[in-house]
């Protein structure tokens, strides 16, 4: 059983020291040398890695400290796609920059792989790389071009670029890759594109690498069987949105099982013994590894509480392992 971070991690905290990156971004906006911003990003990445490790994580992420958001970070790296106005991300109070496709989407080249390599050098634990999947990117993009007749066509081009990025991540040493696809839960008609995308990634991955699919912000139970059929090593579930998902999982699970069981959208701290009781039921019939995670990225929480949520998961594991 592993304790893992999900994806992002708060990039500022309440103390002046933990607001250094915020100040550096403001300064960069006023024309300060870019090197100062890069240094602040690197320092905050190191801090985020350290805090995850300190909380007891076995698998960490770089915290996505450099990303504006998970959608525009990738969509904006395609020629033919511009940044639009802001748009609420699912049911959060977090706003993303909505991409606008103005022409054929063509991947510009390496984006996150150097950041991954930096994080892995700085971390003591394995760093999981994260990509936002083509369905979620396409379903958040406004089409203002004749190059695409619908979002699925655009998703296919997004997929082609993201496969290249996955290869770069593997070349940079990534052995754990999480593909995030919250939009697949609201657009199940896009499953064939997602399946093909994951198959392409599998072809390019080294033998020692594992690819996981993460869904969140909606009930995955209606799509459960179809998600199980996808060519991934593991599935990461958000257990906070569904009344039935845990029961389905408890009937047996053969892939790596990611349990998003600590609510990353609310500050209320779970009791490890309560989580342990729920996990015991599921673990009895799980044949693969189990990852204990927050239900989604941690940037929806204040920094201190984000770390505490990870610590709760670590305590839960200790409780389970006696």
């Amino acid at each position, binding site marked *: 059983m592993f304790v893992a971070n999900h994806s992002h991690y708060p990039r500022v905290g309440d103390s002046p020291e933990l607001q250094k990156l915020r100040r550096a971004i403001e300064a960069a906006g006023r024309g300060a040398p870019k090197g100062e911003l890069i240094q602040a990003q690197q320092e905050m990445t190191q801090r985020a890695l350290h805090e995850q490790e300190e909380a007891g994580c076995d698998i960490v992420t770089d915290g996505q400290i450099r990303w504006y958001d998970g959608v525009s970070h990738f969509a904006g790296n395609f020629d033919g796609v511009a940044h639009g106005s802001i748009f609420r991300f699912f049911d959060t109070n977090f706003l993303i920059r909505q991409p606008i496709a103005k022409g054929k989407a063509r991947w510009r080249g390496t984006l996150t792989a150097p950041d991954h390599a930096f994080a892995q050098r700085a971390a003591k634990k394995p760093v999981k790389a994260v990509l936002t999947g083509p369905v979620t990117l396409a379903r958040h993009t*406004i089409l203002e071009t004749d190059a695409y007749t619908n979002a699925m066509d655009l998703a296919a081009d997004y997929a082609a670029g993201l496969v290249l990025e996955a290869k770069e991540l593997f070349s940079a040493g990534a052995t754990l890759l999480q593909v995030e696809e919250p939009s697949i839960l609201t657009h199940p008609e896009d499953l064939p594109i997602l399946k093909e995308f994951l198959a392409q990634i599998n072809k390019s991955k080294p033998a020692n690498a594992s690819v996981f699919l993460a869904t969140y912000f909606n009930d995955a139970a209606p799509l459960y069987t179809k998600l199980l059929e996808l060519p991934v090593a593991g599935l990461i579930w958000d257990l906070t949105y569904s009344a039935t998902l845990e029961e389905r999982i408890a009937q047996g699970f053969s892939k790596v099982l990611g349990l998003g069981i600590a609510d990353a959208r609310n500050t209320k701290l779970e009791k490890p013994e309560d989580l342990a009781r729920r996990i015991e039921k599921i673990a009895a019939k799980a044949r693969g590894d189990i990852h204990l995670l927050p239900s989604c990225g941690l940037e929806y929480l204040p920094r201190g509480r984000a770390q505490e949520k990870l610590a709760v998961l670590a305590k839960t594991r200790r409780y389970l392992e006696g």
Partner: protein
Amino acid sequence: MSRQKLKQLGLDLPLFPTTSVGSFPKPPELMSARAQLRKRRITPADLKRAEEKATRDWIGFQEKAGVDVLVDGEMYRGDMVAYFAETLTGFREGGLVRSYGNRYYHKPVIADDVTWRAPITVDWWKFSQALTKKPVKGMLTGPYTIMDWSFNEHYPDRRAACMALAQAIRQEVEALISAGCKIIQIDEPALSVRVAELPLVVEAMDAVTRELPAYFITHICYGAFEHVYPEILHLPVDNLDLDMALTARERHPKIKAAPFTKDISYGVSDVHSHIVEDEATVYERVKHALAVIPAAQLWVDPDCGLKTRTVEEAQDKMRVIVAAAQRARKELA
């Protein structure tokens, strides 16, 4: 229908009334005063004087610019949820959470029973209304949005938290009406993201506004309109304030298919751009609105609060909106 209601309330507004969504940027001297107070270099009374001056300036600007329905500009508020959480009982301040880009806010935590103990916005509304003969909107955040944008460590579920907040906000509405306020805006920008909870938003808004004598507006922005329209027309308010400047192309077919039955405050200016649209662009947006909205139902305003712009940008945007509306009155009435 809503025009009738406005008249019954003694309000005679022109065609295409102009207004703003609520917040204006705080001038540099007020920002400095807020920072000084945090460092305890000035007193709360000093800060209040700075807030009053900034409010007077914004009321004066709106009058001079020809805006029809004014706002106090929220010079005394930080975040639209935290401001109410600081005054209602049951909340404690949470840590910083990112809103977008490099913007953060202290997300409140519901830690106990929520109750209304005293007027929150009434003194500022009275202060602002005393400065002008034009109507000043009462500006509140709705119970669903306060619930959704707070952490809940107390109530068993979202519904319980939301309905408790509805009772508290209703008391604030009653206090505003008692003070003489006739137009009250209750913002619910969070409503458009959990479609399954829309009936809860309607129920909570009903608990806030039922049988109260005011013209009610609710502002909704940056959400999945396609999932909540036309159901949002069930909200028990008179006017829906929507961001339309950049979204009209996608939304108009929906509105054509299910006609807009309420008044609309139609956003014609992008508040997240430093670029001030020219009058012709905004006029075309007003004209375009009339393709799906009857003239008598149309108000015009920016897409959202202007607090993230500079003072100059916000003022320029408001001047352009007023000029475009005035031209529309002449050419499109």
